[in-house]
């Protein structure tokens, strides 16, 4: 693979320090639709670049990708902004896609990428919802969402669980696939993947606790409007489809 292509691919399947470009861009773009477009499109450009060259990815890139993934998973622990948390998780996840670039089926690879990114798109929408309701999407700022807007909080919980690769969602099966693939040839990578998974869980729970737990401040309780029936069920249906696609996907993976 020519170096320029490699560099370009490392920008879109973000490898540190090129990953800083995506994160800076994501945080600069405030409009939710643009953020969703970024999340949907960014990794697919990277995949398309890799597959267009038809060259085997060198091993040192895999090590670099894993290091990037660990770095962002670790840094997620100290984040309070939901938007930033989302972009860091995206970076950590997409960097791992380098590990499965040996997959010959490009279409399937794009599908996996979409599967792991969909919860992040939902989280971007929810983050925007928080900004509209409270002026900012930060943990430990208002808290008590479970009390003040229970439907919203419920959806947020499931979306975060989906994002951190909880079973039945596509992330879980893709994580399992990567562990399976690396366990024979790269045991160190397997241990690193398990460590990353643990860090995601830790970061996810910290984010949840900072948002849903606690007593809702009296000012916010009156102002915040919960999801209506239709919006709530729209999210539920997307999550169910995501879960079913995860299970279906697993049939292929495993």
């Amino acid at each position, binding site marked *: 693979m020519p170096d320029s292509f490699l560099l370009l691919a490392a920008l879109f399947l973000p490898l540190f320090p090129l990953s800083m470009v995506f994160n800076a861009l994501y*945080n600069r773009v405030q409009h939710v639709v643009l953020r969703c477009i970024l999340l949907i499109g960014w990794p697919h450009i990277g995949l398309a670049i890799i597959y267009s060259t038809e060259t085997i990815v060198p091993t040192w890139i895999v090590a670099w990708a894993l290091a990037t993934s660990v770095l962002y998973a670790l840094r997620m622990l100290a984040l309070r902004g939901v938007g930033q948390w989302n972009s860091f998780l995206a970076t950590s996840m997409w960097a791992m896609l380098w590990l499965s670039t040996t997959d010959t089926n490009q279409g399937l690879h794009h599908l996996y990428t979409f599967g792991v990114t969909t919860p992040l798109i939902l989280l971007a929408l929810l983050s925007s919802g928080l900004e509209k309701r409270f002026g900012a999407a930060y943990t430990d700022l208002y808290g008590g969402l479970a009390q003040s807007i229970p439907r919203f909080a419920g959806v947020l919980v499931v979306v975060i669980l989906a994002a951190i690769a909880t079973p039945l969602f596509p992330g879980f099966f893709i994580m399992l696939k990567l562990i399976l693939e690396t366990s024979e040839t790269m045991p160190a990578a397997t241990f690193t993947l398990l460590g990353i998974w643990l860090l995601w869980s830790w970061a996810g729970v910290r984010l949840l606790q900072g948002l849903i737990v606690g007593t809702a401040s009296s000012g916010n309780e009156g102002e915040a409007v919960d999801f209506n029936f239709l919006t709530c069920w729209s999210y539920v249906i997307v999550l169910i489809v995501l879960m079913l696609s995860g299970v279906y996907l697993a049939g292929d993976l495993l």
Partner: protein
Amino acid sequence: MMPKLILLIILLPLLSALLMHLFAGQIGRCVARVSIAATLLSVILSGVLLWLSLTGDLVGQSISISPWTILYFDSLSILMALVISLISLIVHIYSLRYMAEESGYVRFFVLLDLMTASLLLMVAAGDLITLIIAWHFVGVFLYFLLGQDTRNPSAYRYAFWTFITYRIGDLPLVLAAVLLFQAYGTWSLPFIFEQLSQAPNAHSVFGLALPEVVGMLLALAAFARSAQFLLHTWLPYTMDGPTPVSALMHAGIVNAGGFLINRFAPIFANTSDVLQWVFIVGFISAVIGSILMLVQNDIKKSLGYSTMGQMGFMIMECGIGAFSLAIYHLIAHGVFKGTLFLSAGSVINSARKNDGVPKDELYTFVVEKRSARTRKPWLLMAAITLLVPLAILIFSHWLVAEDYFQKQGAIVLLFFGWITGAQLIFATYRTHAQNLWRLVIISILSFAIVIIGYIFISHAFEIFLYPDAAFREKLYLAASIEKIRFDILVAVITTIIVVGWLVAYYSERNRKSKHPKYTGRLWTMFYALISREFYFTDLYSLLTRTILSTANKLNIWLRWN
């Protein structure tokens, strides 16, 4: 027909959770009764399956939905399904009124049902993926059950400890599953076990036999779930959750470690060193759990450490190859600990009105941990400590098998008899018996129950769960240690018990004599150590803070991009 029944046991709680969520708005809180009805039905179905299994009409039924969705109902899973659904039913009924004043009433029952379904799926999993999924979900639902009161950050803080420890425990299980799949090319447990029995040493990982590596990983997963030494700190601190959740957790969920080891018994039967390590970890956990239980002044935290000690015993039993004994232990422990938790509120309530404490020396010595001035309680305690295990061993020798002394399982009887016998004496003493003979008769009867329970019932469990005598022997063989090591171990343990009592007695007796400084300082140091719970919690908190601080520094250096 039978596979449908089997499937229904797991689907009923799931269906109930869905119905409750959908109709809570229309029916209101009465919807919780749907949950109770579904759980009751699960209990009945599990009971029917157990009956069929006992009569020999049901042997190893499995339902294969896809290559990685297999439900397997053997003796172990049927027995565990009955235990889980029964404990869940008791918790459901208790919660109906206990949680009535709490917010999130319906959510609580939905989570309770999802937890029951996950536990049932876990015990019925016939493939590695289903097992991992159920294993993972138990941790997730427990986190939300412990944090039922969303206004309470403290409850969530400790629920997080549980969650993260469980996640740490999930990872070795995933790794073990992946290694087994790599070796055998299937996720199906019955198929893997069959292949393994035909050629135990056919595969290796980094030069080590596959069963050895997988066994170690599975043991690690079991340790995290059953709060074993170094992975135990979450258990005593999860008391901010609702009492029914504590009951369910202590009676059912923490026992999963024992279940996992039993489920993978064919793997452990082909190991050479793993079970010895399992025994050592169980032993340390039993001792530390029992010590820390004594210094707690909060009844629920004390029960938490008591559970850690009991889980230590359970793991020890696995470590000596007495796998079925561990299952019997976890059932017995589940029943009695569940009862204790569910009655903790009533005890506290009645204690507020009348503490009911008979103020005499033996009671203050035993319960209030105040030292006695006379020798009588000391001698009595020392006698209990030495005589109870001896009595049990003699009875076992006399009733069960002449070579029982030579069997290494005797060591667990020694320990369990020591602890349980002492506890039974205290319990009978608290019946306020004025008549000494009556007290003695009650004690002897209690010992008899312990002996019968631990020898005859465990033997029955052994026949039911592991009918193949050759396999049972293989398990004991895998767990055995050299005779000289075993003898040394028994000698060391006996010495520790005897010396412990002597030191306690003489240090108390010589409190005002020549060298009070040294013994006093030693005791203070020891007390400081155990009151800080051996500093494990502090150490883990420090580690957590360091990681978070590193993450924060990295973010600042990299300008949050």
